């Protein structure tokens, strides 16, 4: 196709549709409990993908520039859904394609694109409301595991993640790491821990995993740099006078000269000191960590901006904890001596901030702090045969965890496409009552779109969608299809669930983006278009 070029109707619509269809065909097979994979070539490597969001991310351009525009419009929407709720890309793609495809037919039948878009956008909130009217909280560990399985289709992973979230709760923090074996392992961390290890290896003990552990330790937190021995001498003298035998110093930095004070053999006999530094990429993380350590341990942070000085530290500025540990990259405290009342108030404030936070980064930071203050920390180690497999399973585990957290926050709805299908019938009834062309078409488009995910799910499982949908209609409200067992079931009773927020977000973004795409009349193709790499 020559460039530059301006493309007009009807080629615009046809090109956009071809681009959308190309992307949807790559993603649609991943929907449902019997997903098929796509393979992506990345330089000399091949990557097996079973997640719609990642597949969309790997497709950075289509060869035909006009089709590429359609594909990239959809790609952007899919990635937004994936980033925001961790799942639902395949559902979004199917909804988007159906809204766009049906919308084109309605435009061909005389609907005005702008008025059609307005009608779709006006209808969308009520359909989302209807979709969420069946939402309910998750009930127990078994439902969490069943939901996790419907998100990752990996029984071992589902069992581990279900148990972990059940144990540490919606505000718990899960650190997913690459494991060394083939399976999955997990452990719970008592208390809170931070990145940033002991500042000298001589503070650590043990050959296999060097670590410093102290029981009933005093803790001092400061944002000051310790450069000279004289900075520390008054502080250590105070600790000795106060009968402190174990001390954790959390500092901004410490010089070798400063370390020589705490590592002095004569002093070490009287007081075991571990000096750690918090590693934080964001200034807010550092102050948040200092504040959290202070809350957990009852320490009064010694801050430069508050005019504090290490020379003027008092005995009651030290906090305490039953158990303190540090290795070369992390340190933690458990059973701190902080005031439970202050801790409770701080957690309530953080939960409120988490609920109102809009960016994923902010939510993630708040969740880290909540996990530490609330004692809800777990580490999951994801193994595999090869590095690629481990990376892929790790991404799947992280995506599943994000969706499980959404489910814990906002509840679940009947799964297997049933909740969306339920919206369809009332939309069809409403369409018949409307005289306005665009309002009627909007309802018919939405009704058709709501059926698309379940049709694809049935197709992926090897069934005739029309036949199964007819059987479901005769089986009453709540009936759905268990594609793994091949039978009609009550989906709620069978534990087939979807994350309410994922489905709502998929519908919201798919309809609003596809409705906007319907209003595109011309494509302007530049001579040297940029390849979409963000994301």
């Amino acid at each position, binding site marked *: 196709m020559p460039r530059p070029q301006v493309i007009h109707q009807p080629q615009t619509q046809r090109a956009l549709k071809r681009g959308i269809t190309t992307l949807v065909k790559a993603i649609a097979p991943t929907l449902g409990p019997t997903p098929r994979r796509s393979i992506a070539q990345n330089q000399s490597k091949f990557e097996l993908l079973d997640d719609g969001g990642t597949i969309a991310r790997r497709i950075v351009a289509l060869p035909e520039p006009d089709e590429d525009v359609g594909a990239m419009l959809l790609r952007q929407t899919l990635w937004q859904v994936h980033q925001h709720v961790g799942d639902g890309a395949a559902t979004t793609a199917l909804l988007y394609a159906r809204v766009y495809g049906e919308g084109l037919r309605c435009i061909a039948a005389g609907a005005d694109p702008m008025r059609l878009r307005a009608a779709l956008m006006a209808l969308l909130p009520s359909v989302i409301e209807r979709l969420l009217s069946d939402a309910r909280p998750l009930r127990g560990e078994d439902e969490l595991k069943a939901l996790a399985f419907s998100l990752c289709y990996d029984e071992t992973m589902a069992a581990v993640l279900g148990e972990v979230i*059940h144990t540490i709760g919606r505000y*718990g923090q899960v650190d997913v790491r690459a494991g060394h074996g083939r399976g999955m392992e997990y452990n719970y961390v008592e208390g809170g821990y931070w990145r940033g290890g002991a500042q000298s290896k001589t503070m650590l003990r043990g050959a296999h995993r060097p670590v410093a552990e102290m029981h009933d330790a005093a803790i001092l937190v400061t944002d000051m740099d310790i450069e000279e021995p004289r900075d520390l001498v008054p502080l250590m003298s105070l600790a000795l006078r106060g009968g402190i035998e174990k001390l954790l110093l959390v500092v901004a930095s410490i010089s070798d000269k400063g370390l020589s004070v705490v590592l002095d053999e004569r002093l070490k006999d009287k007081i075991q000191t571990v000096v750690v530094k918090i590693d934080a990429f964001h200034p807010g993380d550092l102050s948040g960590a200092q504040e959290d350590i202070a809350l957990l341990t009852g320490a009064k942070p010694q801050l430069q901006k508050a005019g504090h000085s290490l020379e003027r530290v008092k005995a009651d500025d030290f906090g305490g904890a039953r158990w303190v540990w540090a290795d070369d990259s992390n340190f933690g405290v*458990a059973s701190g001596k902080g005031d439970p009342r202050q801790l*409770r108030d701080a957690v309530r404030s953080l939960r409120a901030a988490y609920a109102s936070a809009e960016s994923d980064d902010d939510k993630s930071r708040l969740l880290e702090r909540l996990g530490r203050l609330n004692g809800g920390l777990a580490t999951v180690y994801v193994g595999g045969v090869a590095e690629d497999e481990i990376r892929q399973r790790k991404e799947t585990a992280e995506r599943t965890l994000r969706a499980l957290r959404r489910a814990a926050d906002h509840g679940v709805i009947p799964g297997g496409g049933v909740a969306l299908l339920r919206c369809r019938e009332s939309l069809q009834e409403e369409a018949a009552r409307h005289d306005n062309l665009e309002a009627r078409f909007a309802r018919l488009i939405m009704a058709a779109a709501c059926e698309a995910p379940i049709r694809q799910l049935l197709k992926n499982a090897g069934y005739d969608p029309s036949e199964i949908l007819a059987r479901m209609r005769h089986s009453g409200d709540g009936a759905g299809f268990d594609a793994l067992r091949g039978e009609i079931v009550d989906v709620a009773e069978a534990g087939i669930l979807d994350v309410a927020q994922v489905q709502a977000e998929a519908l919201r973004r798919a309809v609003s983006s596809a409705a906007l795409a319907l209003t595109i009349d011309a494509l302007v193709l530049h001579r040297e278009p940029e390849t979409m790499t963000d994301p």
Partner: protein
Amino acid sequence: MTAATTIERTNSLLLAGDAIYAARQSGLYQIDAAGGARNLFQSWLPDQELPTLALAAAGDVLLAGINGGVARSDDGGTTWSAQLFRAPAPLATCLALSPAFEADGCALAGTFEDGVFRSSDGGRTWRAVNHGFFDHSVYALALSPGFATDGIAFAGVGSGLYRSENGGRLWHDLRMPAGDETVLSLALAADGALYAGCEARGLLRSKDAGNSWEAMLESDGAVNAVAVAKSGEIIAQVEDGLLKSEDEGASWSEFAAEDVDCMTLGADGETLLLAMADGRIVPKAL
């Protein structure tokens, strides 16, 4: 029953079948019908004192809270082994067994400074389960009669009360009318009502699993123990002795004026066993 052989404080009492056990500073004692006390730890740790704070039993399994973990016997107290928690050594202050302990092996142990530890293998191994706790000083535990299926447990701590809905793995703090009051004792009645004895605010009752509360007994002093009889009578151990209410807390009368160390309700829900400060173990019919 008559006087016991030693006069030392009894920290807790347990009536398991016909056997009476008393946890004391010097060890765990079995009290015979004549009131004689035999230290069950003597054959295990001769000539040593092992301070014991809490007791629980199911079938032949007997658990005793000690410094560092629990002492466990699976032959009714003849032989013992120490099942230690992680270091630093926690002091087990209270124990609670799942009503289906013999099937699920689930037990919870509250500790003085280290929160709650949980065992799911009959008390052989223990893991700290402090997810959700802001306060790690645990004074009392109570498990729902349907704990094996509903997973509901309560923990009274130094600054209030916590509820778990997943078998004691994750804990949520409950708002109490007394604010951040220390909860020293807990009892669950047959009708599901939860009674919480506070350090300075008397006795509270919740009929909705801790969501709302009503005052049952106004008291400036501590309610160290509470028991609810099968008949519905409420017994509260306060600093001056024992009080009893037969009308859901509307009025209270003196039940025992003597100095009582601790009390426990028999499995029949009709007999109260009292450990007196003079060493006697006294049964009292309700």
